[in-house]
């Protein structure tokens, strides 16, 4: 009797395999920052329209993740960190990932346009295009500045959230964009310092490979210093306030100290403690972003109760 697996020839994916294509961990950050962008906006939104808006942003981010996995399947198969992803592990066929990515991109943008407004949908479409085409297809394999410019894709969600509520762009939404944009390079380079060999094996021109780890440490410090005024500047806009300022001062001091610690070390120190400081700073960078956006959310809640703000 013939086995059914042999009849079909290829592995048939579970629903979870398709879900994994959408990079659910990245999606968490996207959903959170977009939700904050929507909630801190001065225009109230019907809760269900807000829910659909965030859902569309999440699906759009997932779609760009699927397109990224389709395009990067060859390098994902080489890197240890990404070998278990659905395409390199054989659970999902590349064509399926492309189809899902394109279909969900169209679905999320059109539904967002119908549910909210054209600006929000246009920004979402641009975000998907930026991540899938500008970052994945162009910058990632061609320049060590890939993370710097590509970071814009991850920075758009709060702007889209803001546009869902207001139908426009404002200095506040641009500053939220700038916060994530400036935060991305030190965040990723801290990661690159402790997964160094992987990017080199995959021929991805990560700064650690092209310019060396010393230059990367300098860049982490430089970008972290440039990040501080952006983070603190938000405190003095209409979405900031004393709570945000206190949190920002604390987090920026912590992150800056981590960046200085990385800058003061060399590879011998790093190897000796198995990149303990780099791993710690990477973790701090996650607290940093969630902390700032969490504080903005607290300010928004306080404002609705007649407190908060200046």
């Amino acid at each position, binding site marked *: 009797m013939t086995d*059914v697996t042999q009849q079909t020839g290829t592995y*048939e994916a*579970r*629903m979870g395999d*398709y879900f994994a294509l959408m990079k659910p961990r990245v999606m968490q950050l996207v959903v959170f920052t977009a939700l904050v962008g929507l909630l801190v906006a001065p225009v109230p939104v019907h809760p269900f329209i807000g829910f659909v808006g965030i*859902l569309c942003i999440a699906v759009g981010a997932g779609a760009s993740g699927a397109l990224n996995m389709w395009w990067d399947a060859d390098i994902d198969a080489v890197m240890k960190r990404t070998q278990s992803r659905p395409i390199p592990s054989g659970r999902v066929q590349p064509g399926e990932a492309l189809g899902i990515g394109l279909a969900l991109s169209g679905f999320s943008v059109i539904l967002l346009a119908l549910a909210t407004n054209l600006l929000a949908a246009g920004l979402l479409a641009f975000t998907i295009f930026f991540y899938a085409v500008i970052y994945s297809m162009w910058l990632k394999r061609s320049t060590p500045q890939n993370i710097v410019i590509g970071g814009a894709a991850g920075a758009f969600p709060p702007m889209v959230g803001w546009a869902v509520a207001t139908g426009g762009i404002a200095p506040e939404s641009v500053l939220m964009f700038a916060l994530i944009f400036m935060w991305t390079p030190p965040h990723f380079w801290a990661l690159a310092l402790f997964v160094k060999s992987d990017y080199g094996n995959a021929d991805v021109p990560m700064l650690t490979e092209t310019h060396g780890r010393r230059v990367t440490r300098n860049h982490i410090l430089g970008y972290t210093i440039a990040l501080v005024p952006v983070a603190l500047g938000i405190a003095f806009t209409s979405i900031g306030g004393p709570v945000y300022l206190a949190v920002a001062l604390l987090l920026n001091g912590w992150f800056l100290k981590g960046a200085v610690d990385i800058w003061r070390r060399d590879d011998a120190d790093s190897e000796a403690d198995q990149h303990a400081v780099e791993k710690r700073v990477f973790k701090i960078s996650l607290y940093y972003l969630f902390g700032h956006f969490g504080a903005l959310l607290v300010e928004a809640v306080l404002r609705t109760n007649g407190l908060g703000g200046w």
Partner: protein
Amino acid sequence: MVIKVEHELHKRRLDRNVGVGLLLIGFVVIVLVLTVVKVQGLGDIREMERFDHVARPALEQAAGASEEEGTQ
């Protein structure tokens, strides 16, 4: 003789079919609720008439009145 199918492949297919089914139900619910929310948000029922192709005497009369005012 009863043919018993117990292959793991069928579990994966069931998992996928249930997943797609739930997503489709979710989509229908989203479109339905979104429609209700949007229509309720219009407030004045004449706002909804603006999007159909039915003759609207109330709006035509209003337009006629304003034209007359313009010619005088």
